[in-house]
């Protein structure tokens, strides 16, 4: 297949830690504008795959291309983020000593060098964008609270908000609904589907209701490589997936 | 000193033997009496030579006493005695027989003055005299002196001694001494060449120094032979020099390790930026001092055990102070590691000043027990005992600590508590205890490091300041939280330092080492034994 109309192209990627192969000859392709759900047992390498894409971990071998032509293994985290890959971490990480609003402001798309930041003034558009996001993540009334004082779930939301503010081309979302109520889960699914209309998205999640709700193609990773791929129903019927992941 | 002590021993042995005396004794006494009138060093030296020239073994006693500064002249009657400390005044012994001949107050007697030139003259004289001593150590010492002060007149007595010698190693030394004397004599060339071969085989610095002067003062084949032998010695010595540097590096490393290892606990494991670490080392050193003072005044016989006694006490003292600091200050600061810097800095100022107030600002004397004094040779490698013991000691401390940290439940709890105090408590670990004991352990180890450091450095209130920076460097260079890193870090810094020193000088060498550390950290931002992976970042 041609790389050119893919947003993300992984081929033959392997990485090991002290002899342990966390990713093993992984190949995965995401088309522009596609949303993909990734499932797989704990330790299958889902988070590690995201680490590779965002430049946090260098693969031992294999190709990683973004937007068809950019070789991601040659860039560092900041570069990759600036190219338009945003990430939500499995464990929510926000700037604890900043307010919710400041967290969003730092994430907002815009120039990323020192001097513009030094002389930056918040514009009306930016203010509107922040208000908009605050509305989505339902933290409007806490906008001046320090992020440190949020509960776990609220931090999850804030991180999603920061991801939105970044407005990246490709979103990597690691377990977004962990610690959310069922209702919130549904809400998140709706939000992601919304986003997926004009972005490419990879979602990692263990919550099958949520994955079902998304209604997209699902990839199941196991021991560092793709075990099975297809619709959720297809996977649910796959013996191997049931064996290693879903359980009986 | 050992040498002179050895002579003293020999003398006692000789006491039993009846010396051919009488007429000679009167002559000797007459010469000895001249000490009373000799007014300057050259006059005294003349007397020494005169005594030595008699060749009588009886002169050993007065000469040895003179070298030790124990030869006195009684002011009232100008008689010469050997003095010996005895309660209150000075006990007077007969210079020849050694019999007690009364006592005198310090003011009533005058010491026969001695200086380095005289001491050397006496040593040379005694060297010849003790060739026939019973104790092999004395004969070895004699051979060594005679090797260093070759003289054609030595050849004959040496020949006799060689003939009588039964111990092979002593014999070899005597032969070398003889060879040295041959070189300065007017013996035939062949003899000299043989002598050069013998001395060249010895291969040490003394041989080199001897050959240097031979080369300068002779010509022809002898000169060539000396040059060749020197070249050979020089090349082997260069190898030994490298070995020596490594040894110096290792022993510097062991000092660094000792200084740093307590910090590897309080800082490396607990994360307390412990600026008072150096002061814990200092407390250990002062404990040693106090122990030695008590021993000196009450149990002088135990002096050689003083360090062994001081070790547990130093540990306890420093650990106790550490405990107080932890309970009083640091426990309120967990989770705020940077503020521990401020508090421990304050504590270190207080401790320093406290020691200064109690013990005074000046250096205190901590003596080396006999088993930590002096040096011995391995080939051309001079190894000083104190450094060797410190090395052994530091490795032992390291091993024990490693065991405690890795193999005991306490070690596990320690690491758990530092990783996440709150969660550790929820695992049923008594965190306050663990914290307090861990800090006490780190401090206690710093304390016993102080015992060892008191042997190589000065014991003053500033002792700790000198080590704190190096200790932090070592811990950080090795990788915080990794005991092995501290070990390897200490030794590699020590060795690099000692290899640079001869070329760059001590000052520049140290600068280079610091720059290397800075560069190294760029390469490995988390130290030598960096922990890698997610675990570290989490």
């Amino acid at each position, binding site marked *: 297949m041609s790389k050119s109309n893919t947003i993300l192209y992984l081929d033959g990627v392997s990485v090991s830690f002290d002899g342990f192969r966390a990713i093993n000859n992984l190949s995965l392709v995401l088309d522009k504008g596609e949303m993909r759900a990734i499932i797989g047992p704990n330790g299958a390498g889902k988070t590690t795959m995201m680490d590779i894409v965002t430049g*946090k971990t260098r693969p031992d071998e294999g190709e990683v291309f973004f937007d068809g032509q950019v070789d991601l293994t040659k860039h560092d985290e900041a570069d990759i983020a*600036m190219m338009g890959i945003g990430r939500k*971490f499995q464990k929510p990480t926000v700037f604890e000593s900043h307010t919710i609003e400041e967290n969003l402001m*730092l994430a907002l798309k815009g120039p990323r060098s020192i001097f513009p930041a030094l002389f930056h003034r918040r514009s009306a558009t930016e203010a509107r964008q922040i208000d908009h996001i605050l509305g989505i993540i339902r933290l409007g009334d806490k906008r001046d609270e320090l992020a440190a004082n949020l509960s776990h779930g609220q931090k999850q939301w804030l991180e999603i908000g920061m991801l939105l503010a970044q407005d990246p081309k490709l979103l990597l979302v690691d377990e977004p609904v962990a610690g959310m109520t069922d209702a919130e889960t549904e809400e998140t699914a709706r939000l992601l589907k919304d986003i997926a209309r004009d972005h490419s998205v990879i979602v990692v999640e263990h919550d099958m209701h949520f994955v079902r709700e998304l209604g997209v193609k699902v990839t199941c990773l196991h021991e560092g490589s793709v075990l099975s791929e297809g619709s959720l129903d297809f996977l649910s019927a796959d013996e191997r997936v049931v064996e290693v992941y879903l359980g009986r | 000193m050992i040498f002179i002590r050895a002579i003293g021993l020999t003398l006692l042995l000789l006491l039993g033997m009846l010396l051919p005396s009488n007429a000679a004794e009167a002559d000797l006494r007459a010469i000895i009496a001249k000490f009373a009138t000799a007014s300057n060093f050259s006059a005294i030296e003349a007397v020494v030579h005169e005594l030595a020239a008699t060749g009588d073994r009886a002169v050993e006693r007065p000469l040895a006493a003179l070298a030790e500064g124990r030869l006195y002249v009684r002011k009232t009657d100008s008689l010469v005695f050997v003095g010996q400390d005895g309660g209150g005044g000075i006990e007077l012994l007969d210079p020849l027989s050694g019999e007690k001949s009364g006592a005198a107050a310090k003011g009533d007697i005058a010491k026969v003055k001695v200086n380095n030139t005289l001491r050397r003259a006496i040593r040379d004289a005694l060297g010849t005299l003790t060739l026939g001593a019973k104790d092999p150590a004395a004969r070895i010492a004699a051979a060594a002196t005679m090797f260093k002060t070759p003289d054609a007149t030595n050849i004959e007595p040496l020949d006799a001694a060689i003939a009588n010698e039964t111990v092979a190693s002593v014999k070899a030394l005597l032969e070398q001494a003889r060879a040295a004397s041959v070189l300065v004599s007017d013996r035939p060339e062949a003899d000299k060449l043989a002598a050069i071969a013998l001395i060249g085989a010895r291969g040490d610095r003394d041989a080199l120094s001897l050959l240097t002067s031979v080369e300068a003062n002779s010509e022809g084949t002898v000169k060539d032979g000396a040059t060749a032998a020197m070249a050979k010695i020089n090349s082997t010595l260069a190898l030994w020099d490298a070995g020596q540097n490594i040894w110096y590096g290792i022993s510097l490393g062991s000092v660094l390790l000792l200084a740093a290892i307590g910090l590897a606990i309080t800082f490396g494991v607990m994360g307390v930026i412990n600026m008072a670490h150096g002061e814990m080392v200092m407390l250990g050193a002062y404990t040693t001092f106090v122990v030695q003072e008590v021993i000196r005044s009450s149990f002088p016989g135990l002096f050689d055990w003083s360090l062994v006694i001081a070790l547990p006490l130093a540990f306890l003292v420093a650990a106790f102070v550490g405990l107080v600091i932890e309970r009083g200050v640091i426990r309120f600061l967990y989770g705020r590691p940077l503020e521990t810097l*401020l508090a421990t*800095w304050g504590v270190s100022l207080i401790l320093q000043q406290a020691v200064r107030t109690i013990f005074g600002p000046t250096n205190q004397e901590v003596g080396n027990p006999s088993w930590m004094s002096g040096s011995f040779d391995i080939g051309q490698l001079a190894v000083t005992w104190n450094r060797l013991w410190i090395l052994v000691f530091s490795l032992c401390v390291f091993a024990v600590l490693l065991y405690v940290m890795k193999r005991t439940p306490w070690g596990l709890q320690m690491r758990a508590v530092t990783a996440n105090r709150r969660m550790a408590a929820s695992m049923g670990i008594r965190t306050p205890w663990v914290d307090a004991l861990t800090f006490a352990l780190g401090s206690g180890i710093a304390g016993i490091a102080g015992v060892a450091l008191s042997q190589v450095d000065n014991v003053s209130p500033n002792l700790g300041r000198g080590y704190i920076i190096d200790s932090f460097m070592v811990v950080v260079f090795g990788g915080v939280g990794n005991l092995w890193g501290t070990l390897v870090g200490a030794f590699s810094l020590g060795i690099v330092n000692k290899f640079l020193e001869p070329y760059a000088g001590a*000052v520049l060498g140290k*600068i280079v080492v610091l720059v290397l550390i800075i560069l190294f950290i760029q390469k490995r931002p988390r130290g030598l034994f960096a922990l890698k992976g*997610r675990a570290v970042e989490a």
Partner: protein
Amino acid sequence: MITGRFFAAGADRRVAITIFILLAVAIIVPLLNLAVSSTSAFYVPSYVVALTGKYLCYALLALALDLVWGYCGILSLGHGAFFALGGYAMGMYLMRQIGSRGVYGNPLLPDFMVFLNYRELPWFWYGFDHFWFAAIMVLAVPGLLAFVFGWFAFRSRVTGVYLSIITQAMTYALLLAFFRNDMGFGGNNGLTDFKDILGFNVQADATRSALFAASAVTLALAVFVTWAIVGSKYGKLLMAVRDAESRTRFLGWRAENVKLFAFTVSAVMAGIAGALYVPQVGIINPGEFEPSNSIEVVVWAAVGGRGTIVGPIIGALLVNAGKSWFTGVLPAFWLFALGGLFVAVTLFLPKGIVGMWDSWRGNARALRAASIAEEAGTDPDVPPAKIVRSAARTPGDWSASGPEPQPAE
């Protein structure tokens, strides 16, 4: 916009007041020293002018450190080095101003070079006979060192204690280097015996007052600059880097550049502080590179309150004034007092003087807000006094917030 914020309430007002006080002091103290008769009650003796001038330089240094430590989490244990380098640059200028008035009367070479047998001026002394050149060097040398040092260190992602310790290694290496007489900076004795600055006698009261005023004004300026930096979006970013460096990277920020800028600016500030310090104390020598000096700067900032603008200034003034006072009154015991002070501050004012003040006030404000919410809400039965006491950071309690801020997973 900047002026708007400048007069806004809260912490910003405090900055405004500080700047105002500094500017006022810059005018009043010299007046009271020069224009008031020495018998008057208002007379400020010259030695007080000299002393406070020195403190102001220390305050500037502490402020510089706080910019990187308080706001960016870079605990530099080597800031004394930048201070000293700035000082040396100024010292070299002052040295050259002595001209042939040195003891040997050599018009070109400073005294120490004469008796160490230098035949000519080392190349790195060229240009220092001009004030403008020296002034540039005061900024450039510390700035450049910080830039190069930071460039490598931040790029290699050296952080935390590793960074602290290599900054310490840096100042220690410089200490040893400057101690070397062969370096051409006067070795241990350093540079002394200054005569003129810009043609004015450094020992004259008027010059001293002018230097004092210059220090106060510079400090005011630095406060303003720091405040502007910290309040900008870049300032927020700086703090974000402090709390979760890798997270900023995933947002596309170059954390190393963020740090590098702050580090360099801070080093330049420290250099200026050193340059102002030297003519006022009359000597610069390698002792200023002493690692313990740099640690002390950290202590000043911590005492005053790190992560605040006014804190380090208060801390530096207070600790140094205390030191001057104690060393005079309690010469044998002042270390107990000073050490005790540090311990007490950490225990009882965990966020420093200013930080503590803030949290009292902050608490009061939050309390008020809470009580309003309470009225509107449903639950009136909370005794407000308890709220204050349960502020999570009372000694002994496990802190209520999670463990250390954690980087992105």
